[in-house]
């Protein structure tokens, strides 16, 4: 199974305390400086839609949203361009890209904190990965080995989304923080 178009949503801890107008400003700055890998091109503002993408930065290879899907804010990295490498590599790439922006936003907004224990993996392609038990079975080894790479010997729970109409998604929860180097 080929896991492409990996999305990672790292949840905000507690209530969202930042003014989203300020987040929009940061997105514009990042675009102006082309400060992340790939082409960044636009900002979308969907705050008028309940439980939606809220504010997003659109890119060619990937989008970044401060997403409020499911009424829960989180930084969503949405990979659009296919990637080479193994499934595990692609999961890791998406996770690193998402976490990089989390750290960047945390540095700009001291009251904003993203969870180090809870995030969601989504495969944004029903053609490659329909939301079925078979997909879960096939994807599990890569997901587990990716998780082993970011959590040190800790118990991690995986909870799949079981609605067959939705995309293949698993919620990841651990008892301890994931271990990643701080942003440079």
């Amino acid at each position, binding site marked *: 199974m080929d896991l492409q178009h990996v999305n990672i949503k790292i949840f905000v801890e507690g209530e969202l305390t930042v003014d989203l107008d300020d987040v929009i400003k940061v997105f514009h700055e990042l675009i102006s400086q082309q400060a992340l890998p790939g082409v960044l091109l636009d900002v*979308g503002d969907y705050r*008028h*839609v*309940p439980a939606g993408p809220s504010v997003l930065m*659109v890119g*060619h290879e990937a989008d970044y949203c401060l997403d409020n899907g499911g009424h829960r804010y989180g930084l969503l990295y949405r990979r659009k361009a*296919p990637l080479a490498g193994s499934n595990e590599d692609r999961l890791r790439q998406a996770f690193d890209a998402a976490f990089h922006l989390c750290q960047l936003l945390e540095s700009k907004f001291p009251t904003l904190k993203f969870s180090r224990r809870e995030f969601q993996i989504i495969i944004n392609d029903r*053609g490659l990965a329909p939301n079925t038990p078979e997909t879960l079975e096939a994807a599990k080894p890569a997901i587990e080995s990716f998780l082993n790479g970011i959590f040190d010997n800790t118990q991690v729970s995986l909870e799949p989304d079981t609605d067959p*109409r939705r*995309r293949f998604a698993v919620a990841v929860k651990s008892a301890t923080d994931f271990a990643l180097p701080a942003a440079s």
Partner: protein
Amino acid sequence: MKASNELWKTRLTGQITDGLAEEIDTFEMQIELRRQDKMDEKVFAETRLRRGAYGQRYDNGQRHDGSESKTLPYDTTKHTKGPDTVWDAPGMLRIKIPYGGMNPEQLEVLAELAEEYSDDIAHITTRQDFQLHYVHIENTPTIMRRLAAVGITTREACGNSIRNVCGCPFAGVCQDEAFDVTPYADAFTYFMLGHPDAQNFGRKFKPSFSGCHQHSCGLAAMHDMGMTAVVREVDGERKRGFRVVVGGGLGAVPRQAKLFDEFLPVEELLPIAQAMSKVFGKHGEKKMRSRARLKFLVDKWGIDKFKEEVLAERANLTPDPRWTEYLEHIEEETEKPSRPPGDLPALNGNERMNHWVKTNLREQRQEGYVAATVALPLGDLTSDQLRSLADIVRQFTNGTIRTTVEQNFVIRWVSKADVPALFNALDAVGLSEPGASNILDIVACPGTDTCKLGISSSRGLAAEIRSRLAETSFKLDQAVQDLHIKVSGCFNSCGQHHVADIGFFGANRTVKGFKVPHFQVVLGGQWEENAGSYGLPIVAIPSKKVPNALDRITSFYLTQKQPNERFVKFVKRIGKTKMREILEDLAEVPDYEGNEDFYADWGDPRQYSIGDIGKGECAGEVVSQYEFETAAAERIVFGAQVSLEEGDAQKAGEDAYRAMIKAAKALVLVQYDDVTEEDPDEVVDEFKERYVDTELFLDPFAGSKFADYLFDAHQQVGRTFDADSAHHLIEETQLFIEAVHSCYNRVRTQGLNR
């Protein structure tokens, strides 16, 4: 590009009708040919437009970040997908929904596509289509296949073709309709889709069906071909037919449609549509895009000659059985409910539900049922909401729902007994917004968010007004609640600002050297009676003061209106001079220092093209001669409106022309100060030589359209005006002045050398 594109192609084989499958395969091949530079970029651009794949803002690879225009780092080794259009730049895909009719399976597929290929948002347009934004061209064939598998096409959603066929969302359940127009709109759609006689247009052609004259659900008067259902007694028998109007349209210069036939028998609907397409294809303007809509042909020929030509063409058509086949059982065709009729239960003091019931429900013709409007802020909803809506439609109806021209959904055939359950189901997924079709239900085009032509942020403004009104709207006086607000990001009127009670369209101004986003305030339009009259702009207000302007207008209306006086009548009685007077001080722009917020648009923190400030403007303290002259031109054209209102069409037309000359002179003065408007020939010659021949005045998108307005008016100097022609010239003058402002801004930024 999605990794699964090939997979979908295989998987959906056999699930798509042969014709559609072949067309999509062909389009995929054309994409490949263009990718390899084996197809001309212009030809490819029109090809993709006819498939619904449209351009989007920044697709020329440039983006202004508030201080300068920057090149986006796209892969430049790839070929373009149209003139000046970067291959990898995302675009918009328009999805046709004939008469807005959908089923739950289609909603679910749209949800999937919005998630997988767009930004998780599906957007309903003012012509009942859907739009997905940020779509990569190489994914479009897969999207088209997935849509085709549930019976939806994007074919002819854009380009020079017959666009989506609009229709009343209440057709079949409305108390006022003559008959259900749904099956006729359906037959029209599929008969004309890809019809060989409709492939040679110079511009788009928009049809619409309405069930009655008095309401606005189908907006017949603003369409190229508008049909209103009529029943007549013929030889003692009740016969169905349509009152047909032609040549209507909004766009830059709106036209009310002209009466083509008081009663066209239903048997003649399709042959006349075919004949009209042939006439438009043969005789419509092809070279000058700005004059290529059907309205210009109707204007040029007059309605009598136009009708004569269409009827002659009709007489020569080879009979086609499809013209009438569909009529066989048509009067028995109607949607059926899935639930028994009922009575509305007591709502037990639930204030939100009560408010929603009051504004969003409409009694059906059929006893015991209501149609419920699902009001969508700015026409947007998420994939999760679309899926929930599919469930709701399955639960409460026989599986049908309609989109509306006000960017909402209507769920029909709801048993009154189910109303509380329906409200709760919608409420649980954030779809229980009250205020359908009232002041809160603001219509807005995409504007600067995604449209390449956007001047000001229509969605930003609409969102701001909405959020200010959200808490209080239902406490407002009913007369104010009933107002319609519509916002367009530019003069092109996709937000239908001409037919709102209060309309706004985006404009820009240079004030003391700084660019400032503005909106023109448009008053006098009428939403009812199928868009019965068009408003005119009265004054340009800086974007950030528009909410104050709205407050002023509504308060003034409340205090000055006569009992039961509708807004459109009120504006007529009070007069535009007075209306302008109450807003005039808001047109002032405060100095930049300390008021930087005025120099950015709603929802966009970037300085509004601050990088466009010209050199040597010494902190912008000097009000240039240009600014004086254009302000005078604006005053004169406003005076023309007043004259028109007072019934003096001749003076109105002459003043509009005078304003045009004044505005042209303003630009000439930037280069050459020895010109006087006492000699219009000289002004026009200098203008032509300095701005048109040098291409400085050419609009990046509209080309020479606005300069042609001046040349036409100058050529016809001394003519006699009637109300219609004076109205048109006033519109053209307004647009010419806007173009003068844009040119001035360009010249200041880029200098005089092109």
